[in-house]
């Protein structure tokens, strides 16, 4: 079997007194969609933050392509091809949708102006608009700051951004929580498209129907530990809920 | 002090640290202290302000020097901390300024700022031929030394120079740029402005710059206070026409002498008034005037 793309073992993370992760494992292969599920407060977002370089683990090891890594900063995870849709979206409220979409990857004007760092706002606006429309998200104004967007519009921008830039893995922490019916369907389609293009997807979601619909495998977190892993094809919704709530305990089997 | 038989320890508390007048005073005091073989510490607040000087006096008193030279920043507010110092048996010598309580200060060595202001008025009147509009630029209201100079200036104008119209005082908050703005606006309002009395260095600098920019140097006469190297340079460049020089170095040296005498139980002189000299381009090179110019560091 090929080396996993990401293999995290025994990840520990505490915030003051609260132990968010108590030795969590997680693995992901190239080109697969893995759903990461668990009850509220199970540690899913914390794990996603650690694996995308936003937070540092207190303990445990992370390997990417079999090589141990320590993500000291987001840039390092990003240059490893990892993008993330955070649950809290992490947008700059005062910037426009395009400003957020291209944040840290701004397009510059061609020629001399570009050398001075002058932004090509027209191009960035157009590309942002296209990416959002692909998700069915309509933006009333392209220049107004995102603080004026509706919840779903904001989430659309964040999802479109991550999907556009990811080269190897995209973490999606509740990417459809605020999206409308149509937009949600489009995101699920997009997840499949992305996977088909070779990028792995980690989907964090409380919507079991969505999980069943797009994932290849499911990993279940409970109280900061991985308590079960399933192939989606061979698991029922009841089993998933049981694993999350602790009604069903599965022995950890190394995959 | 702590050491009993050891060296005599004297502390000088300036009215304002980092100001040429008081730094020159410190130089004079240091030289004298070296000559007499006593230890001298210098402390001073960052503003001429009793609420900032009080904690400094308290700290100095905690260190129990044998004597303290101090330029009190207020005639009244500094009485309480100085009384405390006196009770700790520290010999107190007042330099440059005084407090109202006559029982404080074994010796008082001070310039009469009121007289200095009057001298400035005379000098300015002479420069502008006894007539025209005159503006005063000061730092902030409530600084006793500067207030005294303004008072002396205005009283003298009123009493003996009927041809001069006083435009009153403007305050620069001791900021060069503010002083420049003030003079600019004054020139816009009164293009026939004849003279400026700048009560300290920063006021004179800002005013001078404004006059220079407006091409009015020499046309509008200026009299400044204090005679540090920068001011003398201004005098030589024709930015100011006269300076009122005090004797800070002398004050410092005499202060140390008196302090040492007091500690040793010798006789002290209760009051030593010091002179204010008018310095002009005409007399600046004379040796007796050279003597009163402030020293640039020591």
């Amino acid at each position, binding site marked *: 079997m090929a080396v996993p793309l990401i293999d995290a073992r025994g990840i520990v993370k505490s915030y003051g007194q609260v132990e968010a992760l108590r030795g969590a494992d997680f693995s992901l292969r190239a080109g697969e969609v893995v759903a990461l599920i668990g009850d509220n407060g199970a540690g899913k977002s914390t794990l996603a933050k650690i694996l995308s370089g936003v937070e540092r683990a207190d303990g445990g090891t992370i390997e990417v392509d079999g090589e141990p890594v320590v993500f000291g900063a987001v840039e390092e995870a990003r240059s490893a091809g990892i993008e993330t849709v955070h649950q809290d979206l992490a947008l700059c409220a005062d910037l426009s949708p395009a400003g957020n979409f291209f944040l840290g990857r701004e397009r510059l004007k061609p020629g001399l102006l570009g050398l001075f760092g002058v932004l090509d706002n027209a191009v960035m606006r157009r590309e942002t608009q296209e990416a959002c429309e692909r998700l069915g998200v309509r933006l009333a104004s392209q220049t107004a700051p995102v603080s004026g967007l509706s919840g779903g519009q904001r989430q659309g921008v964040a999802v479109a951004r991550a999907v556009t830039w990811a080269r190897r893995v995209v973490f999606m922490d509740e990417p459809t929580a605020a999206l409308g019916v149509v937009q949600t369907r489009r995101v699920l389609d997009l997840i499949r498209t992305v996977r088909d293009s070779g990028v792995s997807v980690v989907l964090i979601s409380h919507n079991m129907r969505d999980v069943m619909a797009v994932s290849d495998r499911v990993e279940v977190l409970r109280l900061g530990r991985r308590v079960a892993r399933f192939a989606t094809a061979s698991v029922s919704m009841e089993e998933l809920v049981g694993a999350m709530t602790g009604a069903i305990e599965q022995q950890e089997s190394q995959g | 002090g702590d050491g009993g038989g050891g060296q005599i320890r004297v502390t000088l508390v300036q009215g304002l640290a*980092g100001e040429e007048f008081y730094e020159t005073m410190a130089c004079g005091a240091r030289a004298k202290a070296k000559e007499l073989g006593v230890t001298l510490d210098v402390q001073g607040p960052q*503003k001429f302000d009793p609420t900032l000087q009080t904690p400094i006096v308290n*700290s100095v008193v905690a260190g129990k020097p044998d004597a303290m030279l101090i330029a009190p920043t207020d005639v009244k*507010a500094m009485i309480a901390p100085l009384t405390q110092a006196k009770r700790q048996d520290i010999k107190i010598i007042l330099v440059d300024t005084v407090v109202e309580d006559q029982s404080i200060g074994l010796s008082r060595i001070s310039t009469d700022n009121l007289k200095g202001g009057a001298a400035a008025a005379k000098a300015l009147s002479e420069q502008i031929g006894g007539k025209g509009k005159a503006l005063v630029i000061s730092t902030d*209201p409530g600084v006793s030394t500067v207030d005294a100079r303004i008072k002396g200036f205005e009283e003298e104008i009123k009493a003996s120079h009927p041809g001069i119209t006083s435009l009153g005082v403007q305050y620069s*908050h001791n900021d060069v740029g503010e002083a420049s703005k003030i003079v600019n606006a004054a020139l816009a309002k009164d293009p026939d402005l004849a003279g400026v009395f700048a009560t300290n260095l920063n006021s004179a600098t800002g005013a001078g710059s404004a006059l220079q920019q407006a091409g009015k140097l020499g046309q509008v006469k200026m009299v400044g206070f204090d005679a540090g190297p920068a001011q003398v340079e201004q005098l030589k460049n024709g930015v100011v026409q006269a300076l009122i020089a005090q004797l800070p170095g002398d004050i410092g040296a005499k202060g140390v002498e008196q302090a040492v005498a007091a500690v040793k139980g010798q006789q002290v002189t209760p009051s030593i008034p010091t002179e204010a000299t008018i310095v002009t381009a005409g007399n600046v090179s004379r040796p007796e005037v050279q003597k009163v110019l402030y020293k640039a560091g020591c």
Partner: protein
Amino acid sequence: MKGVARLSGPQVVWIGLVLAGLLVTFAVLAPRSFPTSFNLLNLVSDAAILLLLATGMTFVIITAGIDLSVGGVLVFSAVAAAKVIDGTGSLALGAATAVVTGLAWGVLNGVLVALGRIPALIVTLGTLGMSLGGALLLTGGVDLRAPAELNLGLGLARWLGVPLIVWICAAITAALALTLAFTRFGRHTYAIGSNTEAARRGGVAVRKHLIKVYGLAGLLAGLAGHLSLAKYGITGVSAHSTDNLQAIAAVVIGGTSLFGGVGTVTGTVIGVFIPVVLQNGFQILGVRPFWQQVVVGAVLVAAVYVDQWRRRARDQ
């Protein structure tokens, strides 16, 4: 235990240790001058009035506001009190005038901030100019003297060897520390600074509360004016231009964020004492004034760095 945590918060522990470290260092370096009851009493007495200003500022900054006007309000109130005492001969009336005048300026700040929605920085910069200018108009630019009964009475009075002014400032600070930590008033102060919109949606009367908070800061500045009149015997028209920055610095050193929502009065108390102790210590050690400026600046940064660094370490 929980009560103590609320009063000081974990962040206060480290900065408190920094202060303790400074005290010990100076005591070791100047054993015969620094740790004397004479010196420590002077320290406390020099810090007392600033403490009042900084305590009011703590409330204001926790609401994510700022008050630059405190020095001007202090002076204006002192002038008003001096005039009233002069006119009526009543010390009590003078004290009441100072407090009410301060309150009035504070309420004006609060109204402009809360109802006018003008940035607090601008409002209080404006009222700083207005109150100082007003004080100068009232006095003609000349410092007024406090009547002797005040200066020699309240100004010098002691109880158990400690100046009465210190007792007053300490008592008020303590009461306000408790208010901030344990009452509804304090809770709403934190809520507004944490998220004004959420506080509003939650039904906190945000505007009214802001007016009260700025009013409190003004009232304390007014009282500080009266105490300063008693202590120094003058109104100090030129003496308070850096009060605002000193108070703000004390609040921030004490762990309160300029962005609001967090902070304690206990932290502020420590924040008041760190610069005061540094200056006193260096003066006693005989460090030259220019060096003092350099060293106090550096140690201040270092002290807050230690604080931040230890806090972060704890959070990991």
